């Protein structure tokens, strides 16, 4: 027994090395900020570094001892990104306080709590016994939970910035769209996997166009309706875009038909075009995307500020703590990428993108190697959800596509989003475990 454990202890050395690298980034970042503020190191700072490193390293070590052979790259990437997120929250807090008042009090401490809770959640998902099969079994429960969440938010939600996205739970405000991401991916994975064999069996024809068979058409229509509903009721364009992208990606994986994706995109485009005319909140986004300089103090203000921040960053950036990132509204959540671009420069921004690219490569590799169709779809869906979210917001804040508000996974400040991202990571790790005993499948 001891012998096996000893032989297993060294199996996750790569992950350990990378985790230590991620901790070094946290230490250097915190050190920069502390040096800028006069060099006073508080006990809390040390506690944060120790807790952060300790939690991740302990998780890694425990995974090694159990020896299921999980993937070794995803955890360090998440640690790196969330460490960067904590540093940024700490860096932005005083500036946000000075500029916008006490509304943004103690976001640094809160983000530390969220990230550490996320790590604990990850450990729980990894070590509390549960079966992959449950996800599949209770599919309609998940779907019902998701729809209920949306309905509750639509009725009881709290409105902020003109969007009704938050549910006030007393202790904290939940953003129901975040758990909805997991629920939806799980449901879609089960649904699409069940109907895998129907590919190309019976195609409907509408005029000259070949339509997908009904089992694909129906959820497609439902998804289309749901996303449109999200836009109309909750005014949450970012989530709608994300859900639709994830759905199309999974549909493509099952069918291998690019034409379905094209049809979906067309439908989305038509819906967006219709909504563009009808709803006031879509139009300014598109106008600001087309030419933010046309109205630099109105609709284009945030974008112009973001572009200015990026321009000020240059190649190497202004340096952590030496820019003025809070001149961009929402710099700690949706626009955190602009803050990174300003203070860490092109190098930091591209580095961050590389992290997400690595995450995608690793996530899809897990999908390729997973043992059944359901797990493959689930892994691909979860990976797509995280990376597509990163894409939507980074491309949005750099004015590549119209801006739709959504958080940058693991980096942005926010409780719901951090926790849910760690949950998704936990499920991905579980799928990647090559040697897991059959009992947990």
């Amino acid at each position, binding site marked *: 027994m001891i012998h096996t454990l000893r032989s297993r202890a060294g199996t996750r050395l790569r992950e350990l090395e990378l985790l230590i690298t991620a901790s070094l980034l946290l230490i250097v970042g915190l050190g920069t900020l502390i040096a800028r503020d006069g060099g006073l190191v508080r006990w809390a700072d040390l506690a944060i570094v120790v807790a952060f490193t300790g939690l991740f390293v302990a998780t890694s070590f425990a995974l090694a001892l159990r020896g299921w052979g999980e993937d070794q790259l995803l955890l360090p990437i998440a640690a790196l990104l969330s460490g960067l997120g904590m540093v940024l929250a700490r860096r932005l807090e005083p500036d946000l306080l000075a500029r916008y008042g006490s509304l943004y009090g103690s976001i640094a401490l809160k983000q530390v709590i969220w990230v550490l809770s996320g790590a604990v959640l990850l450990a729980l998902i990894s070590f509390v016994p549960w079966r992959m099969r449950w996800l599949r079994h209770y599919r309609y429960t998940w779907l019902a939970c998701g729809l209920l969440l949306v309905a509750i938010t639509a009725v009881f939600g709290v409105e902020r910035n003109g969007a009704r996205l938050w549910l006030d739970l007393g202790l904290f405000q939940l953003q129901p769209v975040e758990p909805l991401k997991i629920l939806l991916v799980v449901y879609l994975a089960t649904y699409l996997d069940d109907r895998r064999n129907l590919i190309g069996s019976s195609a409907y024809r509408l005029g000259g166009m070949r339509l997908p068979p009904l089992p694909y058409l129906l959820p497609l229509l439902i998804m289309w309706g749901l996303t449109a509903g999200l836009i109309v009721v909750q005014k949450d364009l970012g989530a709608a875009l994300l859900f639709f992208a994830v759905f199309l990606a999974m549909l493509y994986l099952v069918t*291998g038909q690019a034409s379905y994706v094209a049809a979906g995109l067309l439908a989305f485009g038509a819906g967006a075009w219709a909504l563009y005319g009808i709803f006031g909140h879509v139009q300014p986004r598109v106008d600001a995307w087309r030419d933010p300089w046309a109205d630099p*103090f109105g609709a284009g203000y945030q974008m112009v500020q973001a572009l200015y921040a990026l321009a000020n960053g240059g190649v190497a950036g202004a340096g952590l703590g030496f820019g003025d990132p809070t001149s961009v509204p929402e710099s700690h959540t949706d626009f955190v990428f602009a803050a990174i671009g300003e203070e860490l420069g092109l190098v930091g921004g591209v580095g961050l993108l590389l992290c997400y*690219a690595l995450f995608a*490569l690793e996530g899809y590799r897990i999908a390729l190697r997973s043992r059944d169709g359901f797990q*493959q779809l689930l892994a691909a869906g979860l990976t797509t959800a995280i990376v597509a979210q990163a894409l939507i917001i980074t491309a949005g804040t750099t004015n590549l596509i119209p801006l739709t508000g959504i958080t940058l996974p693991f980096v942005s400040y926010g409780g719901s989003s951090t926790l849910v991202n760690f949950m998704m990571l936990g499920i991905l790790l579980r799928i990647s475990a090559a040697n897991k005993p059959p009992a947990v499948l």
Partner: protein
Amino acid sequence: MDRLRQIVAWLGLFLGLAILALGLLAPDAMQWRLHLLTGLWLLSLLPRAHVSRRLPPPARGVARLTLVVVLALGAVGLQLLREQVVWADATRERVALLRQPAAAAPDAATAVRPADRTSLGSGRVWPVEAGTATRGAIRDRNGVLLAETRDGRRVYPLADLGHIVGFQSRLYGNTGVEATFDDELSGASTLSPTALLEARLLGTPFDPRPADVRLTIDVELQKAAQAALGEQPGAVVLLDPRSGEILALATYPRFDPNQLVLPERASEADVAQVQAAWQALIERQDSPLLNRATQGRYPPGSVIKTFTAAAALDSGVLSGPEAQVTCPNRLETEAGAPPVVNAVENLARRTGDPSDLRRVYAWSCNTAFAQIGLALGPERFIEYARRFGLGFADAPSEPPLRDIAADAGTIAGSAEFLQRPAALADTAFGQGQALVTPLDMALMAAAVANNGALMRPYLVQEVRAGDEVRYQARPEVLRQVITSQAALQMRAVMQTSVEVGYAAPVALPGVTIGAKTGTAEAPPGAPHAWFVAIAPVEQPRFAVAVIVERGGEGSRTALPVARQVLAAALGVQP
């Protein structure tokens, strides 16, 4: 066939790279996005050709998805490259050139000739017989009546706002808002030029539609400012730094405009009475007709150190509030010139030695600011003066306030003066040739308060006739005088002055205030007392400047006035 595909794919790779490179240089964003899409599609040909041949069907989908995601991330990376490197300078330049859409300037304001912009009245008489019975009213921001026409006679219910509202006198012309917005108030602006010409040539009466003018002044705060100033000659300016709205503009001595107005049918006795009142006003030694708040030009004294410090922080001469600065007792600047000395001997005991910017500002150390001015050098000093709206006596800048007569301050007689080190050092700490108005100093503090953005000050909120809005003032950024980072640091410096320095007595319970005292020597006689302040420091809503002529030390006479005004504005008990 396969070979052909291979060649096409390789060609696509090179073509794609070329298109991307061209796109990076394209100034139009839409064009760039199109280039990006085409270029990435061409780039993807090669990996796609490999993927389709080598992989089994289920893996092919995943591989293609991966390719799409990686290419999309690459697109964001290229966008970063474009925004952060290729077009970064262009973006910075565009931001620097941005102007907020200027409020449509009222014709009346621009049409007034400079000669007419004195508070002594121009003698200009409108040649068209506009019925005075129908002239519009003037109100404060909350609707309190400040001027109206009753039975053909112009009445000013609040007698002591003559410097702002002005007067409409058939003998001495119009002044103040009555003059700049005369066309709107009389309704002449609604007439077509031909109708006006006809009315002028034929002397026929016309039917104007007069409009009411609403000011940004808050009468309650105006009264508080006047009460705080009391009967000391001087002025108080209170404005909202975020918009440039002037909330109170008190000056003493004042005059009652009612005594200069003739009734519709004036008897000879009425005319004689008005003439006597006018004669008395213009003969008084203390110039009651002069609007000291916007036209009184005084040496700035130590309050100008706010400007010097802001310039040093913005230009990088000082790295931050904690930057080290020394405060020696004497500072030799150039041979033959008297050395710079401090107002108090051994000031270094209070500031510490070496000290930092916070403390030399709080204790108003002349020698420290002389050094900072010298470190800035004349070119940068002049540039920052221009940004803050201070010109030269031989090349004055345009006064920022358009709604009533105003003068712009000057930093020196001419640019040559500041080339001498002794002159530059003197100007940097508040002596030399600088002459500024209280409004200039309020704007200086306001720019610091508003993250470095200097807003155009204004007095007239809107002009409307019934439901029709004829003029609507919109906040307008005149210039970004310093970066918001420097402004943030400057606010911290100003706050220290209240926490530990000479400005400490201004403190109010529950509010953070940033401030600077000033004692401007103007021999012969006692110095002028100055005080500028912003509050609350975190999110400044008020900027105030006070001068008490011959008031002695700023902290003794001007500070209590500012404190009372701030207390009234912030709604706290002093």
